């Protein structure tokens, strides 16, 4: 029973890891907490829902279309809006909230408030197998989502470690001034990172549309979940975020069983609050201080 709960939790956590990887990357490079990330997640989910219902494209395949699209949107948003707001970090947070509210309005107008989800032929397929004497049941979508997420995260890892761009991104995360001194074009790295961040959340959104149901207002709940994950992992630390995603996926499933599922989100909010206040550097990460 416990193993079953934890297994489902960890599989969900894999999808969470993909969803938050962009958020963490964006914070690392730009020191910007992108509150609109949840709204972009839901937008990605809606687009793959659209592609599925209108054109019959499988959500996992639809990533090939929406991820590049989101990349362009991300570069545009960073260049056109975020880079224009200087100074206080608080202003940038307010700006991303404004973007989130705008997106919620647009999505609500386009798709109404009906809760949607993608139902493919394999949605209700459940694999069951036995380990030792323990029977385990795994829904196919969760397994598929987990596998696809790992694949994309591996690709992201290769980009970050094996390419010039990845090196520039990592250099900027470590020390923006020093990176600029050795010839990294910071403005370009920031725009590209924002684009990559949104591309990953588009992929996360496609997976999300298979597993969860959503409407335009869902982004508030999900951005809180994603924030508590990257905050717990340590802001700006990608490995930290991935570990925290698996951890919280498991904790969430467990707390939904122990408490009622109505009150269990409080675990996320409390983690968010307590970690930010008492250990702003999270599990692995740098301190988030003004100076």
């Amino acid at each position, binding site marked *: 029973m416990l193993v079953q709960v934890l297994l489902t939790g960890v599989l969900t956590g894999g999808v969470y890891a993909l969803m938050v990887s962009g958020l963490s990357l964006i914070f690392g490079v730009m020191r910007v907490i992108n509150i609109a990330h949840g709204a972009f997640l839901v937008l990605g989910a809606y687009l793959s829902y659209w592609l599925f219902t209108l054109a019959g494209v499988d959500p996992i395949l639809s990533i090939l279309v929406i991820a590049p699209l989101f990349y362009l949107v991300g570069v545009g948003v960073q260049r056109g809006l975020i880079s224009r707001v200087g100074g206080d970090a*608080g202003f940038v947070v307010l700006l991303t*909230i404004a973007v989130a*509210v705008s997106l919620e309005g647009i999505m609500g107008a386009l798709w109404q408030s009906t809760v949607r989800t993608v139902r493919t032929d394999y949605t209700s397929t459940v694999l069951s197998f036995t380990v030792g004497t323990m029977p385990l049941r795994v829904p196919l979508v969760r397994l598929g989502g987990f596998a696809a997420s790992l694949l994309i995260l591996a690709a992201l890892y290769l980009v970050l470690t094996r390419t010039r761009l990845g090196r520039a991104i990592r250099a900027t995360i470590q020390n923006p001034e020093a990176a600029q001194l050795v010839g990294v074009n910071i403005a370009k790295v920031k725009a590209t990172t924002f684009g990559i961040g949104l591309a990953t959340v588009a992929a996360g959104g496609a997976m999300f549309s298979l597993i969860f149901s959503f409407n335009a207002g869902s982004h508030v709940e999900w951005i809180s979940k994603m924030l508590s994950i990257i905050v717990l992992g340590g802001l700006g630390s990608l490995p930290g975020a991935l570990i925290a995603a698996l951890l919280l996926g498991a904790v969430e499933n467990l707390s939904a069983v122990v408490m009622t599922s109505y009150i269990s989100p409080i675990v996320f909010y409390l983690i968010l609050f307590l970690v930010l206040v008492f250990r702003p550097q999270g599990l692995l990460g740098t301190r988030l201080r003004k100076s």
Partner: protein
Amino acid sequence: MTFPKVSRLWFGLGLIVLLALPWLFRNPYYHLLGFNLWLLVVTASAWNMLSGYTGYKSLGHSAFFGLGAYLVAITAARYGWNPLWSAPVLGLGVGVIALLVGWVLLRADGSAFVIASIAVLLIFRLLALNLRGLTSGAPGLSQPLPPWSPQFSRMPFYYYMLGLAIITVGVSGFIRRTRFGLGLFAIRDDEGKAASVGVATNLYKVLAFGISAYFMGVAGGIWSYFQGHISPIFTFDILNDVDMVIASMLGGLGTLWGPVLGAFIIVPARDLILFRFGESQIHLAVFGVLMILIIVLLPNGIITTYRNRRRRRAGRTSAFAGARTAAEMTEAAQKADQSGPEKPVR
């Protein structure tokens, strides 16, 4: 310096006009608009006392608005307390709870503070949804109707909120003139330096948080009586915070009259947007885009931008400073011409 300098005469005249307005415009719709206007003046000014003066931008401040609303609604439904007097009293309770929350929350700063403050709001909302014995959960709580004739139903609320708005702006203006207010501005400009010259930064921040939350709580209490029925989703709504933030920023963050001016622009604009686009959720998008435009184009707000522009214009003619007559001006101009290289014109 307060801006604009309001003389007693103008203040008196203005007050008479504001008191007379509900009688001149008898349509209840205008009374609703007026109530909403003063409500936003109160909440935006209260928000500004914390976030404008200290620079700590809270986006969960409507947690205290909602707390006030629920305390008043619960005591009215259970013990029959009249919200008109219970709101300012229970506001003290909200203030005390806020002191405790602020004491913990204000250890974070910058973006961490913004996010943690949102977490506070979400925790309050979840509690309101789940403590069913107290709050009756998602369906919400109803209150007894006001005892006065339905014919006037909204008018007393208008006057009450007007009074609260005057008190709030008064307190906000008073704070600016005290050592305490100076300390808050010092925290905004550079917290580390402020602490090093002896400002008790932690105490000051927490106090500002509590005072600000007191007014939020009272406003929430009166609002819940006005509404007659409250539910967690709309009471603990981050969009309430968005309204306060837009109003304060549009008028001028950290100025005394900025939130008031902002509220006078935002409330009619919001009403117009709701009227034009209210049937679909596109009105949210219009708010969002409005907020984006304000942050990108006018981050300092109307009052501060205007003041800076005036100051710059004054700076440009600084060579003439102190010159009273035309002859003195010419003389000053000649001196300026002779003395060395030209000053760069900003």
